[in-house]
C-alpha cells in the first residue's frame, strides 16, 4: 500500500540545467556563454513550480514580477503571454533573465528550495522573453492619453530605462539624456557580450523607445545643461540615474604605469568600443601574455574573462580575502574557473613596478591572513609582515569598485550628498533634498546590481506620478 501511494505521486523533474558553450571553445569567442533553454526544457522546468497561493518569490523581486503567473503560462506553453506578464512590471526581462542574481533574490525565496532546488526563475524569464522577441514584432501595450507633462531622466542605465518605461506607460512625455553614444549605461559599457549580448540590450532599449520614450545620446548633464536648466526647459520632474562612474585606483606607487587599467576602461574599450574587433573597430586594447585582475566582484570576473578572450595566455584574479568572501556570483566564479582563470587568494598589491618605457612589468604583493570580521561581516584581511614577493605581469586591471562621479554632481547645488559623496535619496520614495528631483541606482547606493537599480526605477515612477498629479512634495 505504501508503495502504491508513492507511485501515484508524480515524480518531480529535477531543476533543468541550461546548456553552455564548452569552456575550451568559448574562451576563443565573445559569443554568449549560456545558451538558453529549449521549449521542452522550459516547459519541464516551469512545471516544477508549485504556484504557491502566497508566493514568496515575488517578495524577493525588486520590480515585483508576478512570477507564479508567468511560470504557469510558460508551463502551458504560452510563452508570449508569459513574456507579456513579466513586462507588466519589468521592461527589461531578457536582461534580467541573464544578469540578475536570482539566487539571492527570487529563487532564494522559492519553497522548493527548502528540500530540493528552487525553480530556475531567471532561466525561464530569459527563455520566454527571447521567445517573444523571436516571433518578430513585439506588441506594445496601449498607452493611456498623454498627460502633457515632461520628465527628464538622466542616464539610460537600468534605473533610467525602468523609470522611463513605466512613466511612458502612464502617459508622460519622457526624455532620457545619455552621456555616451550608446544607450544602456552599464549594460553596454560594463557587462561583456559573452554574458549579455548587446543585441539583447538594443532590443530592450528599443522596446522602451516604442513605449514613447525619447532618448538623446551624447548629452552630458552637468555640462550641456544643469538640472536647474532642465526645469527651465520645461521638464517638471528629473530622475538622476547616473551610475557610480568614478573608478577607484589603489593609491600605490606605480599606479599610473602604462598597462594598468581601471576595470571601467578595460571593459569600456572592449564592450562599448568593441576593441575585441580591432582593427575593424578603431579602439585598441592591449592585454599581453599575463593579465592580473585585482578584485573579487562580478566586474573582476568580467574583466578577467574578457582578457582571456582577447588572447591572454595566463590570467589571474588577485583577491585579498579568501574565496568565501568574494562578492562575485558563484556562477561567474565557476565560469571563470572552468575557463582556466587562476585565483590567488589572500594576497594584496603594495607596489607596481615598471620598465624603462614606463610600462608595468611586475608588482609587489603582500600575503594576508584573515582576522576578525569587519563591518561587512566578512573576516578582515590582515597583512603578514615580511611576506612581500614579486609577481610578473604584462597587464593589471584594477577592479576594486567605484565611487560617485563628481561631474554631474558638481552642478547639483540643491541636492544633498551623503558622507560617501553619493546622492541622499529616500529608499522608498527616491526623493532627493531638491524639489522635483528623484534619484536611484548606483548613484544612491554605491555599486549594486542591475535589478536593485531597476527597483529604484519602479519606485521612482510611482512617486514621480504622485508628485506630478498632486504637486505635493
Amino acid at each position, binding site marked *: 500500500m505504501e508503495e502504491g501511494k508513492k507511485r501515484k505521486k508524480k515524480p518531480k523533474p529535477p531543476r533543468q540545467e541550461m546548456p553552455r558553450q564548452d569552456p575550451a571553445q568559448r574562451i576563443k569567442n565573445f559569443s554568449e556563454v549560456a545558451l538558453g533553454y529549449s521549449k521542452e526544457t522550459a516547459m519541464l522546468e516551469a512545471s516544477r513550480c508549485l504556484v504557491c497561493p502566497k508566493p514568496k518569490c515575488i517578495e524577493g523581486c525588486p520590480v515585483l514580477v508576478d512570477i507564479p503567473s508567468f511560470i504557469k503560462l510558460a508551463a502551458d506553453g504560452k510563452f508570449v503571454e508569459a513574456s507579456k506578464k513579466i513586462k507588466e512590471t519589468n521592461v527589461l526581462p531578457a536582461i534580467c533573465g541573464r544578469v540578475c542574481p536570482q539566487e539571492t533574490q527570487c529563487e532564494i525565496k522559492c519553497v522548493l528550495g527548502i528540500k530540493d532546488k528552487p525553480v530556475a526563475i531567471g532561466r525561464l524569464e530569459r527563455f520566454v522573453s527571447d521567445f517573444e522577441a523571436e516571433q518578430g514584432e513585439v506588441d506594445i501595450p496601449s498607452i493611456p492619453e498623454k498627460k502633457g507633462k515632461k520628465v527628464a531622466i538622466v542616464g539610460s542605465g537600468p534605473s533610467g530605462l525602468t523609470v522611463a518605461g513605466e512613466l511612458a506607460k502612464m502617459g508622460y512625455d519622457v526624455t532620457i539624456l545619455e*552621456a*555616451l*553614444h550608446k544607450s544602456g549605461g552599464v549594460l553596454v*559599457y560594463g557587462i561583456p557580450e559573452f554574458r549579455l549580448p548587446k543585441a539583447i540590450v538594443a532590443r530592450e532599449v528599443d522596446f522602451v523607445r516604442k513605449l514613447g520614450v525619447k532618448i538623446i*545620446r*551624447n*548629452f*552630458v548633464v552637468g*555640462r*550641456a*545643461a544643469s538640472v536647474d536648466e532642465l526645469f527651465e526647459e520645461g521638464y517638471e520632474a528629473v530622475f538622476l540615474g547616473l551610475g557610480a*562612474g*568614478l*573608478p577607484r*585606483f589603489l*593609491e600605490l606607487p606605480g*599606479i*599610473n604605469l*602604462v*598597462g594598468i*587599467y*581601471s576595470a*571601467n*576602461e578595460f571593459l*569600456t*574599450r572592449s564592450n562599448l*568600443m*568593441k576593441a575585441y574587433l*580591432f*582593427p*575593424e*573597430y*578603431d*579602439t*585598441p586594447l*592591449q592585454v599581453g601574455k599575463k593579465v592580473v585582475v585585482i578584485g573579487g566582484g562580478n566586474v573582476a570576473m568580467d574583466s578577467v574573462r574578457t582578457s582571456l578572450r582577447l588572447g591572454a595566455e595566463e590570467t589571474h584574479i588577485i583577491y585579498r580575502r579568501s574565496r568565501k568572501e568574494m562578492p562575485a556570483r558563484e556562477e561567474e566564479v565557476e565560469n571563470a574557473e572552468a575557463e582556466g582563470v587562476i585565483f590567488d587568494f589572500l594576497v594584496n598589491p603594495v607596489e607596481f613596478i615598471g620598465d624603462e*618605457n*614606463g*610600462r608595468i612589468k611586475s608588482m609587489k604583493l603582500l600575503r594576508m591572513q584573515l582576522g576578525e570580521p569587519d563591518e561587512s561581516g566578512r573576516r578582515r584581511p590582515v597583512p603578514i609582515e615580511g611576506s612581500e614577493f614579486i609577481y610578473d605581469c604584462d597587464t593589471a586591471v584594477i577592479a576594486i569598485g567605484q565611487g560617485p*562621479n*563628481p*561631474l554631474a554632481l558638481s552642478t547639483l547645488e540643491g541636492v544633498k550628498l551623503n558622507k560617501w559623496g553619493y546622492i541622499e535619496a529616500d529608499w522608498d520614495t527616491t526623493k532627493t533634498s531638491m524639489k522635483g528631483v528623484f534619484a536611484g541606482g548606483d548613484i544612491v547606493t554605491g555599486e549594486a546590481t542591475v535589478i536593485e537599480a531597476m527597483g529604484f526605477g519602479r519606485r521612482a515612477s510611482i512617486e514621480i506620478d504622485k508628485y506630478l498629479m498632486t504637486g505635493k512634495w
Partner: protein
Amino acid sequence: MNKILNKRVLTEGVNLFEIEAPRIAMKRKPGQFIILRINEEGERIPLTIADVNKDAGSITIVAQVVGKSTHHLGTLNVGDSIRDLVGPLGQPTHIEKFGTVVAIGGGVGHAVCYPIARAMKEAGNYLITIIGARTKDLIILEEETKGFSDEFYITTDDGSYGRKGLVTDQLKEIISGGKKIDLVLAAGPAIMMKFVSLLTKEYGIKTIVSLNSIMVDGTGMCGVCRVEVGGKTKFACVDGPEFDGHEVNYDLLMKRLATYKTEEKVAYDRYLQKVNDGG
C-alpha cells in the same frame, strides 16, 4: 549626427571644421573640448573647441592628420555628418585680468591656445602670443591670432618663418626684456609644455598648460587620461585639461601618450592600404 557646415584646409594635413552643435555653441567656455566619433567603428577622439558661432549654432574644431581617425576626418566635407559629438567637456579656463599674459601655442596645439588667448585679451590683459612650429607650413591661425594680440611672435625649428628656434627662446627674450609677466599659458606637444614650464619656474611665473591625454569617455568614468599633478593623480578630462604647469609630471604624460603607438600604426597602415586599394 552633427553636420559639417564649413571646412577649411589651414595647411597641408591640418583641417578646420565648423560643425553644427547649437547647444554646445551656447554652453561652451574657452578651454573646453568635445569628443567625436566619426562612424560606428570609430574611436572617440577629444578635440578642443577652437571657436564657436552662436548665431550659426556651430563649433569650430581643428584636427591634424596623425593617424587613421584624423585622416578619415580630413576626408569629410561640407554636408557630411559626424556620427557622434559630445560636449562641452572639461573645466573652462579661469579667465580674468591678470595683467600681462603670454599665450604659447605649439603646432596644431595653437588651436587650444587661440580661444583662450582671445578671451584673455577680451578680459583686459596685455596679450603676447607666440606660435611655434617645426616649419612654416605648420603654423595655423596666424592672421586671426595676430589680430587680437598686443605682441605677436612666430618661431620655427628650421627657421623657415619667423624666428629660428623654439618658443622658449622667444619667451626667454621677452622675460629678459624686463616686462613683468603675470601668467603664461601653453598648449602644444608635451615636450614643449615641459620646457616652457621649466623656464617659467626659474623665473617664478605662474604657468597653465592644457594637457592632451588619451581619453575614452571624457566624463571621468575610465581614468585612461590620468596624469600626475603635484604628485597626485588627476583626470585630465574632468579635473583638467588645464593644470599648473610647474606641477605636471610630463615624462609620465609622454609615456602614457605612447601607449598605443603600435596599434595606431597598424590601424593607419591598414586604412591607407584600403584607401589605396579603393583607388
